[in-house]
């Protein structure tokens, strides 16, 4: 199946309900939609905002490649990935990933795969802006995020309909 992933890198917020509507419209074979939204945490009240930097051009391309890999691996009818850039305050959305399929497991796996790869393979960086306005430094990459990728190259796990 050829699907055309919807990939957007934007400063503005997104509307999850609208993205689900767009992704499922005209696909009466879709029975399962999984969305992941990543939200800016407040780090116990110490964080004023995140400043999200990205590599324009490469970011869209990298996410699109990840989405196409997901579409090859699972029978997905729709994939959407939206990542914001610029300043994001606690409680605001950072990222949306959506995977739709006839069956639930493909939708869950597709969305989890997309997020794992997006976390450490798409060119985005987060800087912390502290409550007092000071630069809180760049967020360090987590080893656990790299480890998260490894399960997708190991045995497939749960391939059920």
């Amino acid at each position, binding site marked *: 199946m050829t699907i055309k992933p919807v990939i957007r890198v934007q400063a503005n917020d997104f509307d999850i309900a609208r993205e689900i509507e767009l992704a499922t419209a005209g696909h009466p074979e879709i029975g399962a939609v999984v969305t992941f939204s990543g939200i800016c945490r407040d780090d116990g009240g110490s964080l004023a905002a995140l400043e999200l930097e990205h590599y324009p051009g490469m970011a869209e391309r990298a996410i699109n490649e990840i989405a196409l890999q997901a579409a090859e691996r699972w029978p997905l009818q729709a994939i959407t990935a939206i990542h914001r850039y610029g300043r994001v305050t606690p409680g605001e959305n950072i990222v949306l990933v959506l995977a739709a399929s006839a069956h639930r497991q493909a939708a869950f796996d597709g969305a989890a795969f997309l997020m794992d790869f997006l976390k450490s393979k798409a*060119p985005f960086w987060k800087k912390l802006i502290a409550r007092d306005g000071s630069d809180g430094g760049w967020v360090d990459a987590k080893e656990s995020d790299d480890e998260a990728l490894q399960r997708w190259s190991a045995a497939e796990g749960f391939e059920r309909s």
Partner: protein
Amino acid sequence: MTIFEQAPNTSSTNRPVKLVYFAWVRERIGVPQEEIALPSSVVTVRDLLHWLKERGEGYEHALQFPEVIRVALDHEHAEHDEPLGDAREIGLFPPMTGG
């Protein structure tokens, strides 16, 4: 900013490339991007990182641990042992923290 004239080891140069920097690599080097003519001795990604590191204090600070730097050739991730080939835009950045 074009800095052909500042580049060391330019005795035999390749075509100029555009270098783009992100996050703390950008902050430490002090510019978001620059055009640079690479000497022909710079063949692989690793060669580039070590050569750049010698260009001054900011570069030294940014590339102190070259092994952690991620590199993209024309928007594609590249390993450190890969040749630069005919890449026109080379991105240098820390490990990514999106999502």
